[in-house]
C-alpha cells in the first residue's frame, strides 16, 4: 500500500528537501551533527543525505559524539554570522548539552541586551513506538518551552515538517525542532517545495463544534482517529494541531474552546507538569465562565518510556483514551441545572 510515487514522500525526505532549499538559498546555512556527512550515511535517518556532497564538507560537517561541542560550535558560529542547523540525534541526548541550550542559546540575546543573537535550529528525533526504551524516546518539549528565549516546534505532517523547518532556519531565535521517529519513517503527501509554515501558528486539523482537542506531533494522528470515532457517535470534535509549542497559538486555542466550551489537551509526554498543564490553566483562566466541563488532560503515565511492546503500547496515549476524555467533557452532569 505504501507504494512510492511522486505525490508522497517520507517525513525524513520532507526534512531533507527543506535543508537543501535553505542551503541553496543562503550560504550562511550550515549543518552539523553526528554522522550528518554522506561518508557517514547522511544522518541516522538519512535526513541530511546528499548535503555534504552538494554543498561540501565545510557546510555539512560530521562531528564527534560531543553534544556540548556541537551546540557550542553552532552557537559561536551563529554569533559569527552563520545559521547553523545542528542535529542532536535524539531528544534525550539534549540532556547532555542542556547547559549550552538553556544557559547560552536561549539567554544570550537577553543577557547581552540584544547585541548578540543565536539563530540556530536544533533538530532531534523522539517518540515512543519504536522500542527505544527509556533513553531514546522521551518528549521533553516542556523543558524547552520553559526556557524564555527558546522556540519549540513539533510538526505532525510532511508539509509542516518542511515548512516549519524552513521558518526555523530563517528565524533569528534559537529553535528546537522535534521530529517524531515513527512519523519520519512514514509516508505522506509530498510538501510543496519551499512553502513556509509560520512559527507560532496552530492549524485546525479537523473542524468541529462540540469539543476541542489540542495536541501536537504524532498525537494529532491519534486525536484525529478519536475524532472519527466521536463523529460516528454524534460528537463533532475540533482538532487543533499546535505545530509550535512555544510560542503557542493561544488565540487559535481560545477561539476554538470559546466556540465548543469543552477542551481536551493531549501530549505524548508524561502528564504531570507537561505543556498540557500550561494550556489547560490558560483555558481555565481565560474562559472560566464559558466552559461546559473541566478541561481534560491526557498524557503518558508518570514513568520512563518502557520497552516491552505491551507496556509501550499502553504508555502512548491512545485514540481510545482521547475519545474517553472527550466523552467525559460531553457529560451532562457537568452542567448545573
Amino acid at each position, binding site marked *: 500500500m505504501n507504494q512510492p510515487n511522486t505525490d508522497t514522500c517520507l517525513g525524513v525526505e520532507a526534512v531533507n528537501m527543506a535543508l537543501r532549499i535553505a542551503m541553496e538559498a543562503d550560504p550562511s546555512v550550515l549543518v552539523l551533527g553526528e554522522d550528518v556527512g554522506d561518508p557517514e550515511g547522511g544522518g541516522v535517518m538519512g535526513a541530511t543525505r546528499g548535503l555534504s556532497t552538494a554543498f561540501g564538507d565545510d*557546510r555539512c560537517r560530521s*562531528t564527534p559524539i*560531543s553534544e556540548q*561541542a556541537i551546540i*557550542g*560550535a553552532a552557537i*559561536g558560529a551563529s554569533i559569527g*554570522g552563520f545559521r547553523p542547523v545542528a542535529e542532536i540525534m535524539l531528544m534525550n541526548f539534549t540532556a547532555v548539552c542542556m547547559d549550552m541550550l538553556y544557559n547560552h542559546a536561549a539567554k544570550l540575546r537577553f543577557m*547581552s541586551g*540584544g547585541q548578540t543573537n543565536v539563530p540556530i535550529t536544533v533538530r532531534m528525533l523522539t517518540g515512543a513506538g519504536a522500542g527505544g526504551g527509556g533513553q531514546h524516546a522521551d518528549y521533553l518539549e516542556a523543558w524547552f518551552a520553559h526556557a524564555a528565549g527558546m522556540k519549540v516546534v513539533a510538526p505532525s505532517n510532511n508539509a509542516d515538517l518542511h515548512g516549519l523547518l524552513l521558518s526555523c532556519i530563517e528565524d533569528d531565535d534559537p529553535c528546537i525542532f522535534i521530529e517524531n521517529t515513527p512519523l519520519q519513517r512514514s509516508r505522506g503527501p509530498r510538501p510543496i517545495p519551499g512553502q513556509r509554515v509560520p512559527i507560532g501558528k496552530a492549524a485546525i486539523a479537523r473542524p468541529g463544534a462540540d469539543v476541542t482537542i489540542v495536541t501536537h506531533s504524532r498525537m494529532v494522528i491519534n486525536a484525529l482517529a478519536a475524532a472519527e470515532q466521536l463523529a460516528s457517535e454524534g460528537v463533532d470534535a475540533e482538532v487543533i494541531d499546535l505545530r509550535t509549542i512555544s510560542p503557542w497559538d493561544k488565540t487559535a486555542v481560545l477561539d476554538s474552546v470559546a466556540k465548543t466550551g469543552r477542551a481536551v489537551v493531549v501530549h505524548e509526554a508524561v502528564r504531570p507538569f507537561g505543556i498540557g498543564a500550561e494550556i489547560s490553566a490558560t483555558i481555565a483562566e481565560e474562559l472560566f465562565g464559558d466552559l461546559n466541563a473541566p478541561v481534560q488532560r491526557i498524557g503518558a503515565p508518570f514513568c520512563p518510556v518502557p520497552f516491552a511492546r505491551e507496556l509501550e503500547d499502553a504508555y502512548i496515549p491512545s485514540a481510545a483514551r482521547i475519545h474517553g476524555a472527550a466523552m467525559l467533557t460531553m457529560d451532562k452532569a457537568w452542567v448545573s441545572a
Partner: protein
Amino acid sequence: MTNAYAPDPATKLQIYGLMSLIKQNDEHARRAIRTGRLVMNYYSPRGQECIPAAVSVSLDPEDYICTIYRGLHDMVAKGVPLKPLWAEFAGRVDGTCKGKGGPMHITHPASGCMVTTGIVGSSMPIANGLAWSAKLSGSKRVTVAYFGDGASNIGAFHESLNLASIWKLPVIFVCQNNQYSEHTPIEKCTAIDEIARRADSYSMPGVRVNGNDPVEVYAAAREAIDRARAGEGPTLIEAVTFRFFGHNMGDDDSYMPKDKKQAALERDPFPLYRRRIIDEGVATEAELEAIDQAHERDVREALEFALASPPPEIAELHRDVYAQEVNQ
C-alpha cells in the same frame, strides 16, 4: 621560547599599561562594593592581570574573546570601554548590555568581547564556533577562550579541545591556572600536575608558562596566535598564577594555607613587572606613575558615570527575550 617572540620595549610598555588599567579597575571595584556604592557578585582577577594583558597586545580589535565570570581583566585588556563596562556592573541602562546581563555576562562585540559566561567550562565550546565562523569566512580572525584550572575538569573542555583539533580551528585556549577550583586546591581535584599536558590527548601544542611573567605569556600567546592565523590550528596555554582575593568578594580565604598565599603575594606580578621595566629602561618611574594616575582617573570617571546612569525601565523584562516580543 625563541627571541622572535620577545616583546619590544613599546609592547612591554603597552602590557604594563593594560596591567595598570586592570589593577585600577579591580581596586575600584572592590572599594565600591566595600563602601556600598555598588552591589554585585565580584570575582577579583587581581594577581592574574598580566595574562590577558600579555595576550591582548597580539590581538586585533576584530579578534574575539570568550571569557568567564572572573573576567574583568580579560575584558579590559581586550578593550571593552570603561564607562559602559561599569554601568553594566551597576545594572544601569548605559551598560554594555543595558544592565540586563550584569558583571558575569559582559558582552561588547565592538571590542570583540563576544560572550562572558557564568558557567565554569562554557567559554570553550562557544569559542570554537566563533573560530569556525572565521575559518568559514576566510578571515584571519582568531578567538581566545579564557577559563580557569577548574574548568579543565569539565567535559566541555575535553569535547572542545578535541573538536578544535580535528577541525583545525583558529582558537587559543588560555587556562589561567590560579590553583583553586572555587575553594578546592588543584592537587585535590585535578589528576594531572600540568594542565598543558592535557593538550597531548588532543594532538595540539600545550604550553605551560609562568602566568606572572608577562614576557613568557607574551611569547607563548604570540606563537599560538600566529599559528592560529596561519591556519595551523589551536593551542592550549596554561598560565600558572594565583588569585589574591579568593573565589569571590567576601571570601575569607580560610581554606588557603597562609604561607601559600603569602608566597604568592610576594610574587605579585604587578610591582615585579613595574620594577623590571624601569630597570630595563623601558620607562621611568615618573612615566609609569603618570600612566597609573591617568588610569585611576579614567576608572573613577567610569564609576561616577555608571552611578549617574538610570536603571533600565521595567519594560526591558520583555525586550530582547526574542527577536520580536512574544506575549506568552
